[in-house]
C-alpha cells in the first residue's frame, strides 16, 4: 500500500507533465484556449501528490515513519540491480511535503502571471516535470533514482533559464548553468559507480551503512563525489556564479528553482549522506570551508547588487552557504530547519520581487565605513571574485581550443583518409575559368558527360586528373617530395600541439582513466 502510494508522489506530477506534453503535441491544449486545461492538469498533478504526501505524513505520525519501501525493480543488468525504492523517513517526508506545497503555490501563482504567454504550456509542463523531479529526488530510496531526479531538475532549470530563447543572453546563461552542473554530476556518477563496485548496491541505507565501515579514503572518495554534485547544484564556491546568471526565466520559475527549491537540493543530499560525512572528517572540513567561503561570497556580492533578482540570488547563495557550513560543523538538524524556513521565505520574497519598489520605504542600510572604503574588495566583489573568467581561462578556453584542433584534424586528416569531400577540386570560380581560358581547358578532353553515371565518371576523372596534376606532375616530378615535406610539417605541428598544457592535461587524464580501470 505505502509502496504504491510513494510511487504516486513523483508519479502524479510526472503524469501531468506528460499529459501537457501530449496535449501540446496533439494540439489540444495550445494557445490561449488551452491555458485552463493545462493549468488544471498541472495543479491536479501537484495537488494530488501533495495530498498523497499528507496522507503519508499522517501515517508516519500515527505508525512511525515507514523507512525504506520498495515498489519494484527498475533496472537489472547482470549483478547490478536498481530498485524503484523510496526512503520515507521524517527528513524525506517533510522535505517532500514542503517541496510539493511550494510547487503548488508557484503553479497557482503562474496561472495569472503567465496568462497569454506564448510559452504557457511549455512553462506548466516543465514546472510539473520539475516538481516530479524534485519529489523523486527527495523521496527516492537509492542513489540512481536520486540522480534521475537530480538530472531532470537540472534539465528543467536549463530549459526555463532559456525560456526566452530568442534572447542570446538567456540561452548563453542557460548553457553556462547546465555545464557548471555537469561537473557536479560527474562526481555523482562516480559515486554511484563506486557504490555499485564497493557496496554492491545503491540503496541509500545500504550505501550509507556500508560506507561507514570503509576505510576513510574510500568513504571519502564515495562521499566526495556526492559532495561535488551538491556543491555544484547548490551553487557553492567555486560553482557559485551560475546562480547569478540563472535569473533569465519568468519570475515564478526563478522563485522556485533559485529561491525556494532546487538550490537546496545540494543541502538535502548532504543531509542525506550525513553518516559518511560524520565518518570522514575531511569531508566535514571541505563542507565547512566551502560553505563559509560561499556565505562570504554571497554576503559581499549581495551588498552591491543593484537589481532585485540578483540581490536575492546572492542572498540565497549566502544562506545556502551557511547551511553547508552548519553541515560541515556537524549541525545537520539545524541545517535542515534552516533549509525549510529559507525555502518558504524565499518563495514568498521572490514572488513578490516585481513589487519590491512598493514594498520598501527607504534605501538599504549602507555598509559600515570600513567596508565602504575597501576599493580592492569592492572591485573583487563587483567582479564576483573573477570566478567566471578564471573558469573560462582554466577550462572553457582549453576545451574550445581542443575542439577546434580536433575539427581541424577531422577536416584535414580524417576526411581525406576516408574520402569525404572536404574541399572542392573542380574549377568552381570564374577566376579559375578565366585562367583556364587563357591556358588550356581542363574538361574538354574528358568529353561530354550525360546522366548521373556519366557525371559521376566525369567527376572521378577530373578528381583523378587533379590528383595526378598536384601530386605527380607538378614541378617536373617533384610532387612526391613536396608531399613528404608537408607530412614533416604536419608532424612538427602535432609535436607542437602536444607540448601545450591542454594536451598534457588530456594525456594525464587518459592515463589516469586507463590506470583506474
Amino acid at each position, binding site marked *: 500500500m505505502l509502496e504504491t502510494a510513494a510511487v504516486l508522489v513523483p508519479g502524479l506530477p510526472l503524469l501531468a507533465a506528460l499529459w501537457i506534453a501530449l496535449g501540446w503535441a496533439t494540439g489540444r491544449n495550445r494557445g490561449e484556449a488551452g491555458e485552463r486545461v493545462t493549468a488544471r492538469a498541472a495543479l491536479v498533478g501537484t495537488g494530488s501528490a501533495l495530498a498523497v504526501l499528507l496522507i503519508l505524513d499522517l501515517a508516519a505520525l500515527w505508525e512511525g515513519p515507514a523507512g525504506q519501501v520498495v515498489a519494484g525493480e527498475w533496472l537489472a543488468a547482470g549483478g547490478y540491480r536498481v530498485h524503484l525504492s523510496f526512503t520515507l523517513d521524517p527528513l524525506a517526508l517533510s522535505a517532500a511535503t514542503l517541496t510539493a506545497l511550494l510547487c503548488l503555490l508557484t503553479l497557482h501563482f503562474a496561472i495569472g502571471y503567465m496568462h497569454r504567454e506564448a510559452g504557457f504550456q511549455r512553462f506548466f509542463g516543465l514546472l510539473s516535470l520539475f516538481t516530479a523531479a524534485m519529489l523523486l529526488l527527495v523521496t527516492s530510496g537509492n542513489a540512481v533514482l536520486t540522480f534521475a531526479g537530480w538530472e531532470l531538475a537540472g534539465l528543467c532549470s536549463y530549459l526555463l533559464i532559456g525560456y526566452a530563447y530568442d534572447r542570446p543572453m538567456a540561452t548563453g546563461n542557460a548553457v553556462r548553468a547546465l555545464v557548471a552542473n555537469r561537473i557536479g554530476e560527474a562526481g555523482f556518477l562516480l559515486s554511484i559507480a563506486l557504490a555499485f563496485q564497493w557496496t554492491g548496491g545503491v540503496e541509500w541505507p545500504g550505501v550509507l551503512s556500508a560506507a561507514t565501515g570503509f576505510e576513510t579514503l574510500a568513504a571519502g572518495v564515495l562521499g566526495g563525489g556526492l559532495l561535488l554534485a551538491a556543491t555544484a547544484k547548490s551553487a557553492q564556491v567555486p560553482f557559485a556564479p551560475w546562480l547569478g546568471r540563472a535569473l533569465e526565466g519568468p519570475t515564478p520559475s526563478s522563485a522556485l528553482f533559485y529561491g525556494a527549491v532546487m538550490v537546496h537540493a545540494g543541502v538535502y543530499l548532504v543531509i542525506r549522506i550525513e553518516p559518511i560525512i560524520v565518518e570522514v572528517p575531511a569531508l566535514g572540513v571541505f563542507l565547512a570551508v566551502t560553505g563559509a567561503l560561499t556565505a562570504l561570497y554571497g554576503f559581499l556580492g549581495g551588498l552591491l547588487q*543593484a537589481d532585485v533578482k540578483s540581490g536575492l540570488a546572492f542572498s540565497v547563495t549566502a544562506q545556502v552557504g551557511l547551511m553547508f557550513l552548519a553541515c560541515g560543523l556537524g549541525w545537520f538538524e539545524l541545517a535542515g530547519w534552516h533549509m525549510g524556513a529559507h525555502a518558504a521565505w524565499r518563495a514568498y520574497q521572490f514572488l513578490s520581487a516585481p513589487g519590491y519598489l512598493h514594498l520598501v520605504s527607504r534605501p538599504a542600510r549602507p555598509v559600515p565605513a570600513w567596508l565602504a572604503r575597501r576599493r580592492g574588495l569592492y572591485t573583487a566583489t563587483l*567582479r564576483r571574485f573573477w570566478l567566471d573568467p578564471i573558469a573560462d581561462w582554466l577550462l572553457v578556453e582549453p576545451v574550445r581550443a581542443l575542439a*577546434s584542433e580536433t575539427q581541424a584534424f577531422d577536416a584535414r586528416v580524417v576526411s581525406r583518409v576516408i574520402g569525404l569531400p572536404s574541399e572542392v577540386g573542380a574549377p568552381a570560380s570564374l577566376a579559375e575559368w578565366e585562367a583556364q581560358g587563357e591556358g588550356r581547358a581542363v574538361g574538354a578532353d574528358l568529353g561530354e558527360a550525360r546522366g548521373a553515371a556519366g557525371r559521376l565518371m566525369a567527376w572521378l576523372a577530373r578528381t583523378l586528373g587533379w590528383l595526378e596534376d598536384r601530386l605527380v606532375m607538378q614541378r617536373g616530378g617533384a610532387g612526391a617530395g613536396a608531399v613528404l615535406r608537408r607530412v614533416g610539417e604536419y608532424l612538427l605541428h602535432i609535436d607542437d600541439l602536444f607540448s601545450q598544457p591542454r594536451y598534457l592535461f588530456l594525456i594525464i587524464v587518459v592515463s589516469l582513466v586507463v590506470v583506474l580501470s
Partner: protein
Amino acid sequence: MTEGRLEDGDDVRETVRAAIAHLSHGLPAQAPIRDFVHHNTLHGFQALPFPEAVDAARRLTGAAAYLADDHFRDLLRAGRVRRADLAAVVDEASELDPDAEVAECAGGPLRRREVYLAALMHPLRPVTGCQLTWLSEELAAFEAVQPDVDPPTRERLLATARARGLASEREAVADLWAGCLARLGLAHFILHPEDLLDLDPEQAQAMLARTVGDLPGTPGASRVQRRLGAESDKVLDELIGRVGVDLTLRGLLLALTGEDILEPVRPALLRQLANHLDHGVAAWHSPDRGRGFYVAWREAARADLVWLFTDLPNWHDLLDALPDDPVETVVVLLKRMGLPVARWAGYLERLALEIPGWSGMVLWHHLHPGAAGPSGPVDMTDYLAVRLVLERALGRRLCARLWQVDSQLDLIRWHLRHHRAELYVRHALFNARLPEYLTRLAQRLVDRGAEDPASPEDWQRLAHLVWTWRQSPSADRGEGYTLHRSAWPLFRLAQHLGLDGDEVRALPTPALRAIFDCLERLTPAQAGYLWLQAYERPYRDALLGALAGNRARASARGGTPPTAQVLFCMDDREEGYRRHLEEANPSIETFGTAGFFGLPMYWRGLDDTGLTPLCPVGVTPAHQVHEVAGAEAAATLLAHRSRRGWRVRLQDLLHQESRRGLIASAALIALAAPAALALLAAKVFVPAAAGRWMRVLRTRVDLEVPTRATVTAVAPAVPASPEHPRLGYTDDEQADRVEGLLRAIGLIRFAPLVVIVGHGSSSQNNPHRAAYDCGACSGRHGGPNARAFAAMANRAEVRALLRGRGVVIPEDTWFLAAEHDTCAESIAWMDLDLLPRALAEPFARLRADLTAASRGSAHERCRRLASAPRDARPEQALRHVAGRALDFSQTRPELGHANNAAAVIGRRTLTRGVFFDRRVFLISYDPTLDPEGEVLEAILLAATPVGAGINLEYYFSTVSNEHYGSGSKVTHNLAGLFGVMDGASGDLRTGLPRQMIEVHEPMRLQVVVEARTDLLGRIHARQPVLRELIGNAWVHLVAMDPESGALSLFRPGIGFVAWAPEDRAPTTVARSADWYAGETGPLPPALLAGSGGYHA
C-alpha cells in the same frame, strides 16, 4: 597617451558637449519607473511630420514604425480595414501621383492607383533564388493563379486567356509568366546554388562575358582579380565611411569578424552602472561614487584582475594613460581612433544607442541633476568615456589577434586594403546572404585559430567562389530587370490586375517603367503610413457619425435640473464610469477635465516625508498642500506615527535585511518563514480575502487619523513661486482656481451636491503601477487635488469672492471630494464628516448610484479581460475586478489606457448617451461661454499634450514592442528601483510592457473640438505646441461647429475640409450592456436610448 592634452581646447570640448545635448533625441527619455508618466516615445522627433519622424527614428534605431503589412492585410480580410478607405488614402497621397495613367489596357486605362492598391493588398515582395525555386517546384506557382487573387479577377484573367485559345489555367499562367519574362527580356532560370560548385562551361563563359567582358585583359592580374579588388575596395570604403554615421568601432568589427567585443564585458559594466545609479537596492556603492562614474569605474578597473585571464596585457598602460577628465578622454580616444571631428557627434549617438535603455537612464539623471536617487553625480560624459575606453581596449585586442594592427580606423583600412580577399569574404559572410555551401566554407576560415591561420590563398580561393556566386543569376545582383526583383513581382501584379500574357507583352516601355516606379515608391515606410491612415478611418467615421447622430438627438431632448454633478478626470477610463453613472441615474450630470483640477500643487500626505508634485509634467507648482491632523486628534496622531513607524520599519527589516545580512538574515528568515508561508498560501489561493484582511489589519495597526488638507495660506503675504512654493493658497488665489475650472468646464448652475473625483489605480506586484495612475498628476493619484478643490469651493470667503465675479454657488450646494480606483472600481470619500446634515439623504442616493456605476463599469471591463468570468452578473464582476487589484500574481490588474483613440472637447450633451467603449478622453468645455476662445486655448494647451503623450506611447509600444515597449513582464527584473530589465544583465526596458498593449489598436488620437474652425485655426497658428502636434499629424484635429454641428477635418498644409458623413446611421441600443454583451473585441460607438432623462 599622455600627450593627449587638448591643444585645440574648447572647440572639441564644445563638440562633445553639443553631441551629448543632442542625445536626448534618439534615446528613451523615460524617467525612473516610480514616476512613470506617459509621453510621446518619439518626443525627440516631434518637430518633424509624423511619417518623416517615424521613418527617421526607424533609420536610427531600426524599430518598426507601423504594424506589419501582413497584420494590416489580416485586418483587411477581417473587415477592420476597408478597401474603400485604402483607395481614399492613396488618392489623398498626391505625392504618389495616383491618377497618372500607366497604360491603356483592354479593360480600360490602368492608373497608378490600381498598382498601388494591388501592391498594398497583396505582397509583391522580391524573392530570393531559393524562394523562387521553392515557389516553382513546391508551390507550382507557374501552373496556377496565385491563391490570393480575388475570384472575379481570376475569372476575368482566365476568360481573356480562353478567348486567346489557352484553355487551361495552367497554360494561361505559364503564358503570363512567359509574357513577363519576354517583356523584361529575361530567361527562365532556376538554379540551385550548389550547381555553381561545378560550373558548366557555357554558363561560366556567359557570366564572364557579362561581368568582366568590358575590362581589357592585362598580363599579371586577371580581369576577375581586378574586378574583385575594385569591389572589395568599395565595400571597405563604405564600411569605414559608416563609422560615426551608423556604426561604432564595435559595429565595424562585428561586421567584419562576427565577434561582439562588448558582449564579454557588458554584464560587468551594466552591473557597475546599476550600482552607480542605484536608488536604494544595494547597500554598498563604490567608494568613488561621489567622483562620478568615470573615476569610479577607472578606480575599480585598476584593481581588477580580469586582464590576467582575458588576454589584455596592456590593460594597465591604457588605464594609466587615461586623462582624469572624461571629456578629455572622449576627445583623446576619438582622435586616437582616427575619426574625423565631423563624425564625433554621430559616433557618440551610435555608441549610446547600442544599449539604449541604460544610456537613456544615464542621460535622464544627467539632465535632472536635482532628482532624488543616486547620491553621486551622474554625467553622460562619464558613461560615454567608459564605453570608449572599453571599446578601445577590447577592439585593440581583437585587431591585434586577427590582423596584428592597432584598432585605429586608418590601420584597419590599411591592413584590409592589403587583404582584399579576406575582407571580401568576411564582409560577405557577416553582412550578406550567402548560400549554405559558401557560409560553411567561410565560417571555417574565420574560425581558424591563431595557431593555424588561414593563408592568403585560402581567402583568395574562397573570395573567388563567393564572387562567382554573386555573378550568377541566383544571387540576383545585376542592374536592370532581374528574375527575382522584377519578373516575379510583375507576374504577381499582373494577376492581381487581371492582365494576361499578351497584355503584359504589349506594355509599352514607359508603362513598364511606371509600374516599377510605383513599386519603388511604395517603400515600407510609405506603405505603412497608407495602411495606418486607412486603419484610422473606420474608427474616425464611426466616431464622428455617432457624435453627429447624438447631436441631432440631444437637441431634441428636454430635461430637468440635475440632482447631482460629478466632475471626473478626462481619462478615457472614466468615460465608461460616467456613462454607467448616467445610466444608473439619468438626473446626474457629469463633467470631465484634466485630473489635477486646475490645482498644480506639491502634496504632502500625513505619512509622507517629502513633497510630491501633483500636476502635469512640465508644470512646476508654486503652492504646497499638506495633509494634517486636527488638533483634537493629536493623541491619535502620536499613536499613529509611532505604530506606523514600527510597522514600516518591520516591513523594511523583513524585505531589506533578510537579503542584506548573513547571520542576522538567517535568524530573521527563520522567524518570518512560518508567517510568510501562510501569507503566501493565502495570497495565492484567496487573494481578495487575503488582501482585505491585510488592509483591515493595517488600519487596525496604524490607526486612522482624521485629517484635513491645508488649502488656505497661513502667511498669505509670502509670495508663492516655483522656487519657494508657499503652503496654502490665499483667498484670491483660491477663488481664481475655482472660478477658472468652473468656467472652463461650463459648470455655472449648481446641483446641491457637486463631487470632484480624482483617480488612481491600485495593484500589487506591479513595477509599472504609476503608468495606471493619473497622467495629469504626473503618474500619481489625483485624490488630493480633488480634496483641495472641494475644500476651497466650500469656503464662505471663496464663495463670496466668486459671487463678486458672477459665479453664484447657492448656499445649499456642497462640494465633496472622492477618489476613484480605476482598477478595483471603488470610490474613497474624503472629508465626509463636513457634509451638511441636510444633504445626507441625497448623498446616500448618490452613493448608491456610484456603486451601481462601479458595478456597471466593472462588468463592461470584464468583457475585455480573458481571465474574467464570462456572463458574470454586475456584482460578480465588481468582486472580480476588486480581486484583481489585490492579486499579486496578476500582470494585468487593469488594461490601463489600452484602446484610447479619441478626445472630445465640448459639452457633455454631445457625448452623453453614447457608448464610446472607454476609448475617448472627455473634456468638458462650453463654447457658448467662451466667444474669444481663451478657455479653449488653455484646454488645448493642457490636454492635447497629455492625451497625445498617452496615445503615442501606446502607439509606439504596440507597433514595436521589442524596441519601444518593454517586452513581457514575466521576465522583468527591477533594477535599482528605477527601471526594469530582462533577466539579470539585459538592457533596461522602457515603454509599456506587452501585457498593457496587447489589446490596443494603434491609431493616432482624434481630437474633436466643439468650436468654430476659424477660432481653432487661429489658436493652432499661434501656439507652437499645437502646431507641432496637430500640424505634424501626431494627432488629428476635427472641429464641430457649435451652431450647425458641421464636422470638419483638419488636414495639415490644407486646412479644414468638411467631413462627409457615411450613409449608415449609428446603431442605437437600449443600454451599454446590450451593445457589448458577448463581445470581447473593440466596439464602434453606439447610441444609447436608455439614458434619456436628460436635462438641457
